[in-house]
């Protein structure tokens, strides 16, 4: 115990100082205001945690600083919003991606069983060229703008019948993309002739399944849109959470496999690639969904209004689902309680995963020494991809959860990434508890900042309260980071280097 105290003296003093400062600051306000600041801080902290934890896990395990993490957050938000409010974009693009991926997986796994393709290197480049040509052919003239249009966009709503392409053309695209995937998969297989020979039929089944799914969705697009929009908003929101997180995880896995993995021998270039991804991804998102933002409705579960509202307490809220809950005489939006709960659940779930599961054991060992884990016969590369996907999925989940709270726009990725970076620097890279603590601290600081923006700050020697804009509150977290850097450069929970 005394040993622990000695080793962590700065940390303990720092935490005590932070708690004391917070208690003092809270005591300056009425209890109801203080409570709502605390709850707002927890809400923001929960969202920051979802971004920070993945960032920290990925860095801890594979030393990759993922600058595209904010992008994944944003993609999650957009995918969730799309499924919730305008699913026809998904229904018209998902089959195309499925066909491409299905074709590629099928060809990659089937290649070892096929007779050897003659021609060597030339055949490989020829196949790549064929794949690119078919990809261009399959996506030529595909217009997303009418599909993305909604009631509030400039041209008004375009009816689905006009917005989506006729079945014949769409299936033609599917076939072209599937062929492109097959050519690409064969080219990949030619590049790595010995890898993946004895994986059995699992890959084949997966590839064929994806292709079949794409062909199944194609004729059912209109039907699917009606079915999804016909669901209750709560169920739709639940599906949106799953779809958003899932697509974020899939994208994260794809990024690791295609762009990060070839660069493990050149760590600096990994960072450079992820920064390039931000550029590409942001432009793609603007291209698909337009440069302006969207507002996502809160599901019915959190948005009932009426005489009984706001609900007097959490238990009563379970019965009436009011939009806000009374906290010491001040209404607090119930949706934010959901965000806090989600953050806590994910915190506990990841902690259990890390502490109690085999995968978690491998991850923790990998953080210590990835090479040693590899030497023990564990496929560390696959664990890398899984952890990258996991972190990306967490960020995307945060994005969906944030969508009804702050809306969806092409700038949210960058904003959350900045705050997540600050949280990571404060908490210490590669430490799970540090990520949580940093996120919480940044969230609370932002909540205080927002309150001060509302009420101004009363300095003892000035007659009037000093007022400033929300921008100052956003920038102030950087100052906390600077302070932590001065006192403890490795962060509150970081390892000493």
């Amino acid at each position, binding site marked *: 115990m005394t040993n622990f105290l000695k080793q962590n003296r700065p940390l303990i003093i720092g935490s005590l100082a932070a708690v004391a400062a917070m208690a003092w600051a809270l005591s300056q306000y009425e209890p109801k205001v203080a409570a709502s600041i605390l709850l707002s801080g927890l809400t923001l902290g929960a969202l920051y945690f979802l971004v920070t934890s993945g960032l920290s896990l990925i860095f801890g395990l594979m030393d990759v600083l993922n600058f595209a993490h904010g992008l994944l957050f944003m993609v999650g938000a957009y995918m969730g919003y799309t499924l919730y409010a305008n699913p026809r974009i998904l229904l018209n693009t998902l089959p195309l991606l499925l066909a491409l991926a299905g074709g590629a997986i099928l060809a990659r796994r089937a290649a070892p069983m096929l007779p050897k393709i003659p021609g060597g290197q030339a055949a490989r480049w020829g196949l790549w060229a064929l794949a690119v040509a078919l990809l261009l052919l399959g996506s030529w003239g595909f217009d997303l703008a009418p599909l993305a249009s909604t009631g509030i966009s400039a041209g008004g709503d375009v009816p689905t019948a006009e917005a989506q392409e006729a079945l014949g053309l769409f299936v033609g695209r599917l076939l072209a993309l599937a062929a492109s995937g097959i050519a690409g998969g064969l080219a990949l297989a030619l590049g790595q002739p010995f890898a993946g020979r004895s994986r059995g039929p699992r890959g084949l089944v997966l590839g064929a399944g994806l292709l079949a799914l794409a062909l199944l969705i194609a004729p059912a697009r209109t039907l699917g849109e009606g079915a999804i929009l016909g669901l209750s908003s709560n169920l739709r929101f639940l599906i949106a959470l799953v779809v958003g997180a899932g697509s974020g995880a899939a994208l994260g896995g794809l990024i690791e496999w295609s*762009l990060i993995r*070839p660069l493990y021998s050149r760590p600096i270039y990994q960072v450079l690639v992820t920064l390039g991804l931000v550029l*590409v991804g942001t432009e793609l998102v603007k291209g698909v969904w337009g440069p302006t933002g969207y507002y996502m409705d809160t599901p019915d579960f959190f948005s009932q209004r009426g005489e009984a509202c706001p609900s007097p307490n959490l238990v009563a809220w379970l019965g009436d689902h009011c939009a806000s809950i009374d906290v010491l005489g001040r209404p607090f939006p119930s949706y934010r309680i959901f965000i806090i709960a989600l953050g806590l659940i994910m915190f506990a779930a990841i902690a259990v995963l890390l502490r109690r599961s085999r995968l978690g054991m491998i991850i923790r060992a990998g953080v210590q020494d990835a090479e040693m884990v590899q030497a023990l016969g564990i496929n560390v590369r696959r664990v890398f991809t899984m952890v990258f996907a996991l972190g990306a999925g967490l960020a995307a989940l945060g994005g969906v959860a944030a969508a009804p709270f702050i809306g969806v726009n092409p700038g949210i990725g960058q904003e959350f990434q900045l705050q997540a970076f600050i949280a990571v*620097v404060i908490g210490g890279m590669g430490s799970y508890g540090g990520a949580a603590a940093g996120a919480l601290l940044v969230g609370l600081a932002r909540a205080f900042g927002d309150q001060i923006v509302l009420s101004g700050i009363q300095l003892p020697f000035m007659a009037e309260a000093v007022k400033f804009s929300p*921008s100052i509150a956003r920038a102030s977290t950087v100052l906390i*980071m600077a302070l932590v850097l*001065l006192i403890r450069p490795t962060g509150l929970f970081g390892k000493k280097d």
Partner: protein
Amino acid sequence: MIRKIPPAGWAGAALVAGLCLFPFAMALITGQPVGEGAPKFWQGMLIQVFILAVYAMSYDLLMGYTGILSFGHALFFGTGSYVLGMMLKHAGWPLWQAALMIVVVAVAQSLIVGVLSLRVSGVYLTMVTLAFAQMFFILAEATDFREWTGAEDGLQGIPIPSWISPTDQRLRFYFVALGFALVMYLLARRVVSSPTGAVMVAIRENEPRARMLGYNTFVYKLIAITISGVMAALAGGMNAIWNLNANTAMLGVGTTINALLMTIIGGAGSLVGPMLGAGVLQLLGYWLNAAFGPRWPLIFGVVYILIVLFFPYGLVGTWRLRGAGLLALWRRRLGEARQQV
């Protein structure tokens, strides 16, 4: 004392001479006067290339020579723009005093940011520098300082002295910008070839060893950040003169990404590479914008990722690695062809 001038030196001198003649050559080819139409447009294009070249070169002093990967370089570029704008517009200072002020502010700023961010290294430093740059970006957008910075509209209508006005005296400004780029290049080369520059390279290659040899690496890194910051700020000031404004985008992440793009495309670890990269970025950007409209950064991002993946040494680096071999191959083919004739 007469030194033998290397072939690269002759090539450089020829390039500068060519750039000096360029406006007149354009005027001859197009048949339009030097101060109007296409010649004027292309002078403007090159002026932007010169400014960006200095900015990219300053970034490479950090990234390519010292091995410090900063993601906050826009901070200096943007601050230079804003300082120049505020000094001319609000304080009514003459241009040379404003330029001096840029240097003073940039030194102070890079010392503060350097002392704080150099407490960490590697990817931590990228995050910390990014955070500092974002802080200034947010502050520039803040409505509290609207009188001074113009908030999200930027600082518009900077009163530029008429003798250097980029619209009326384009040709003169062209030569000023060319001279600026040349002076900055010579300065940077002086730094790189000095003993200090050698220590910077040593830090890039192996910092613990440099420290073991007795060099205070922290001080050298701080020097690198300061020199690079001042150069970037001066380039930012030039940019403010050229645009007649200073806006928040100059402080944004996009500006830092531009520095990276130019350095990576041209080749990190050489002074000429990033300058070349600036030319490629500017001209390619112009054509891509004409061909693809406002979504052209998408194409650029893809090109950037491909370069990072497949040509990590950039144009100049790849040429240095492969150039000799290619030249030899070309000569041999030429010889074979001659024999066959």
